[in-house]
């Protein structure tokens, strides 16, 4: 056992794998290989506070250099892994170096899904995934612009909120009939649409995008919608989902299905290889079928489990999924997974902008979404973790003490 661990990736899952291995007593070398030029940093602010100029660049680092030094984690930056040889237990970098491993962690994340329409390669079309992406976009924002956001999902809407707050003219074009349709029920989609419209953002629903038109000099000029209308645009930001990075794993013969397949302890079928985070599909107690999540919580907690497995102390990853999104003064937080629910209870009044939605499937609480009630979000997570039994009627009754369910 002298080669140590190689962890490929430079973000939440990679960092937590390394930390999880150390916390479980792993004593050999750990090398973390990232193709980015920076130590692991926070991604959520890239569409929120950092885009809006409210958070400084040096506040983004997940850990200071002391952490890597103190934990004996060697970080190789700007190094891309291009192949895995499972027989020889080596990874090959794009520069041609071979690194041997005893255990390998894949924390490869996801990349933005690219637009497949004419004009997608014009100057002024942006995607947001990395710090480099946000820095490049920020450079263009010195004067007030017309900005078209393609995609009414989390990232698109956060970008719209940040840019509208900065004083830009923003439109959001969404192909489906409501915002964030994949994860939110219609009542919340409508709430979010109203909020954006109230801030002067033009929200176009059921609207396809046909083409991005140029100005003749290679720059974005407008967005042509499928209904024939045209939106003037200096900048287009596309947030139409992400694609998990499975290429390396698939080429090495590991099973993938829109995500590298792992078990509930983050292990692949190869006993030397674990995987975690956005690049992974795993069996979850919160969904009937194996799921792939895109969240800081999942990358961190599953990363920890993967690190424990690398240290020879596998443990089941069972944490309650949670997520948050900040748009204007609205803090939306989600605990559990609501898709597939058959009943929904509203706690509080939506009009007041502070409320929660409790989701039930076959009589069981499966998820809690809160708006500007972070305390109830934490409580919701505890109720889900405890498998507390709660009825929709109790959830809707604000005089019913939810905390009492935990004490019982």
């Amino acid at each position, binding site marked *: 056992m002298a080669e140590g661990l190689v962890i490929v990736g430079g973000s939440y899952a990679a960092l937590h794998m390394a930390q999880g291995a150390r916390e479980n007593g792993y004593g050999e070398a750990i090398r973390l290989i990232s193709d980015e030029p920076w130590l692991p940093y926070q991604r959520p602010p890239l569409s*929120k*506070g950092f885009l809006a100029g409210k958070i400084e660049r040096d506040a983004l*680092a997940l850990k*200071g250099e*002391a952490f890597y030094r103190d934990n004996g984690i060697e970080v190789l930056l700007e190094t891309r892994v291009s192949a895995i040889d499972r027989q020889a237990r080596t990874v090959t970098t794009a520069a041609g170096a071979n690194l041997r491993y005893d255990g390998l962690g894949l924390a490869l994340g996801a990349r933005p899904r690219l637009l497949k329409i004419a004009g997608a390669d014009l100057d002024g079309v942006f995607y947001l995934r990395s710090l480099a992406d946000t820095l490049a976009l920020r450079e263009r924002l010195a004067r007030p612009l017309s900005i078209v956001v393609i995609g009414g999902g989390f990232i698109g809407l956060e970008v719209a909120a940040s840019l509208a707050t900065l004083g830009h003219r923003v439109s959001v074009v969404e192909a489906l009939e409501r915002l964030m349709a994949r994860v939110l029920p219609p009542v919340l989609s409508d709430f979010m649409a109203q909020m954006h419209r109230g801030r002067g953002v033009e929200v176009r629903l059921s609207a396809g995008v046909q083409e991005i038109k140029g100005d003749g000099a290679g720059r974005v000029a407008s967005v042509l919608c499928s209904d024939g209308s045209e939106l003037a645009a200096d900048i287009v930001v596309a947030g139409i989902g992400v694609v998990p990075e499975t290429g390396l794993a698939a080429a090495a013969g590991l099973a993938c299905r829109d995500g590298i397949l792992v078990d509930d302890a983050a292990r692949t079928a190869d006993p030397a290889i674990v995987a975690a985070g956005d690049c992974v599909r795993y069996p979850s107690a919160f969904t009937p079928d194996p799921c792939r999540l895109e969240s800081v919580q999942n990358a961190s907690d599953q990363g920890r489990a993967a690190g424990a497995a690398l240290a020879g102390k596998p443990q089941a990853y069972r944490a309650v999924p949670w997520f948050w999104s900040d748009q204007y003064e609205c*803090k939306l937080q989600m605990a559990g997974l609501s898709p597939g629910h058959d009943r929904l209870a509203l706690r509080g009044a939506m009009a007041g902008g502070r409320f929660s939605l409790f989701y039930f499937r076959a009589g069981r609480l499966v998820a809690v979404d809160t708006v500007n*009630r972070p*305390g*109830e979000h934490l409580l919701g997570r505890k109720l889900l973790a405890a498998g507390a039994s709660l009825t929709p009627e109790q959830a809707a009754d604000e005089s019913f003490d939810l905390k009492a369910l935990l004490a019982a």
Partner: protein
Amino acid sequence: MVIYQLKDGSERRVDVPAGHSVMLGAVQNDLPGIDAECGGCCACGTCHVYVDPAHYGRLPAVEAMEDDLLSGVAAGRQATSRLSCQITMTPALDGLVVRMPERQG
């Protein structure tokens, strides 16, 4: 400078630049006891600290969102509980003393 009292009873003095939060000062210097799972978005409640009672009055008042989140922190809220990600360092706060709670999650 911020003085952090760790769970093992020891103390760490950290120069936290003005504009950075008390949470960031702990995380970027690898001090145990603050998890900060949400990175300072006031969404997770895992950056909870007890401010030394003698210093509590120096801080700006708790805002509504922080107040709401404090109601759910793992170690239990006390009179001088704050979320360290919501305390931004200013020269006026130099020498602030905070204590890490028993647990964050």
